[in-house]
């Protein structure tokens, strides 16, 4: 591992924000999903059960992992967005960005290390959350995972990966606006706009909404209407954000 990668990995490993986000992504989300499915599958006719049942699409493992994918789609953008904004923006907020310049390790390499470390962490959280979900499903009595479980697992991992990519432009925002709070407030703005665009019926072509809709957030019909092209819009958006951030770190006056 090169120097910038190992240093950024150590900084992220020690960061309280990353630890909290990790716990939420890999433990809280599967637990909440399992609890909601358990409630929906119960024989009770309580108001909670009545609300939980319509949120499930399909049955068994498919419904359970689908529910997890819905929650993961929102939580991943929020968690990765906050962590990435901090990872990049802290250098400006804390004034350490100047110490990262005029080094044999170029600013572009430093920023790339930040992006790579955050990506690996986020994708790892998605994978671990999926693994943690398996004993959760067994615990609520879903039985042995079936073919539907495999399909739903793939969808869950794709959603996690796409939402991670969609957080990358926040590295550019935190750089241009020189601080992590700017990135976090932009993230909140993205969430609000996503809600509005989705409510207006145009969510399929809005990169930040498509993965959630595909996961089932808008119901079974909306999920089926999402095309691969709409989903893959996340890739150019993420890569463009990463490229813009790296370009700015290499060429702009950062101090």
């Amino acid at each position: 591992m090169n120097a910038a990668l190992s240093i950024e990995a150590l900084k992220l490993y020690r960061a309280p924000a990353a630890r909290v986000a990790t716990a939420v992504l890999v433990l809280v989300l599967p637990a909440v999903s399992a609890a909601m499915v358990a409630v929906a599958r119960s024989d009770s006719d309580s108001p909670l059960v009545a609300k939980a049942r319509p949120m499930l699409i399909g049955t068994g493992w498919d419904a359970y992992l689908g529910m997890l994918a819905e929650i993961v789609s929102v939580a991943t953008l929020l968690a990765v967005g906050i962590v990435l904004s901090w990872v990049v923006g802290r250098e400006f907020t804390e004034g350490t960005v100047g110490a990262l310049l005029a080094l044999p390790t170029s600013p572009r390499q430093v920023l790339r290390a930040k992006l790579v470390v955050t990506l690996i962490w986020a994708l790892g959280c998605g994978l671990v959350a999926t693994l943690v979900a398996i004993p959760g499903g067994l615990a609520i009595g879903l039985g042995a995972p079936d073919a539907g479980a495999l399909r739903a697992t793939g969808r869950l991992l794709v959603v996690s990966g796409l939402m991670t990519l969609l957080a990358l432009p926040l590295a550019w925002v935190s750089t241009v606006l020189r601080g992590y709070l700017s990135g976090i407030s932009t993230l909140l703005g993205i969430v609000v706009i996503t809600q509005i665009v989705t409510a207006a019926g145009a969510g399929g072509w809005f990169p930040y909404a498509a993965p959630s809709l595909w996961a089932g957030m808008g119901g079974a019909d909306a999920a089926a209407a999402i095309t691969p092209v709409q989903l893959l819009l996340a890739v150019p958006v993420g890569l463009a954000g990463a490229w813009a951030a790296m370009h700015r770190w290499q060429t702009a006056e950062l101090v």
Partner: protein
Amino acid sequence: MSAAVVAGGGRTEPVVRLATSGVARSFGTEQALAGVDLDLHAGEVHALVGLNGAGKTTLMRLALGMLHPDAGTVRVDVGDGPVDPVGAPSATWGHVGHLIETPFTYPELTVRETVRSAARLRGLDRTAADAATTRVLAELALDHWAERRARTLSLGNRQRVGLACAVVHDPKVLVLDEPSNALDPAGVVRVRRWLADAADRGAAVLVSSHHLDEMARVAHRITVLHRGRVLGTLDPAGADLERQFFDMVYEEEDAVDGAPAPAHTTTPTSPRSAA
């Protein structure tokens, strides 16, 4: 003692590590530097003194390529020929150390991890970084805090860690912006000795400070910067440097017809009012 090369006719000429020529830089309508010529030789400590806002930090950032000049040129030479610091090759930066305002410290890392990280980013491999970290922690008397997280350090010790990061790779060119900020008297003496030793080993050290007495003890040359211009030089061995400094500054202020004096020159501690 400055390093020098033998020129034609047996004359010795200093090895220039850093040179600025006519460097100017503005921020909006504020002219931070207005045509500064400066050079820095191997084996010398060259002090930049000036009031707040004189342009010292801007000049140092320009020297390190962190800012781009509006006019003029900056050249850094670590032995491979002079290069523009903007876009300089990574090999150049492997021989440059700097501490400009905020030190390279992260609250979640220990002092040893911080200095080792700085060494790695400066191009040292793991083994060399470990050895250099141990050496510099001892030289700057930071061993006691080596395993402490940076968040637990005093401001002065964080500054010393920042200095350790700047020098851990034994650079040929050192650019230090007020390195003794927040240090206690023992820390000031320790850093001063370290800078003198570094110059004796051949390093070129550009250092800024408000403290003339401190600079007089360590610098081979003192350049006075005011309102983004070089007013002249002071002889570190000269008498009453503070009076010489303020005479220079007030002469410049008087020459700027109608220009209001900076607020800090009208404080009750001003030598003009105290004289």
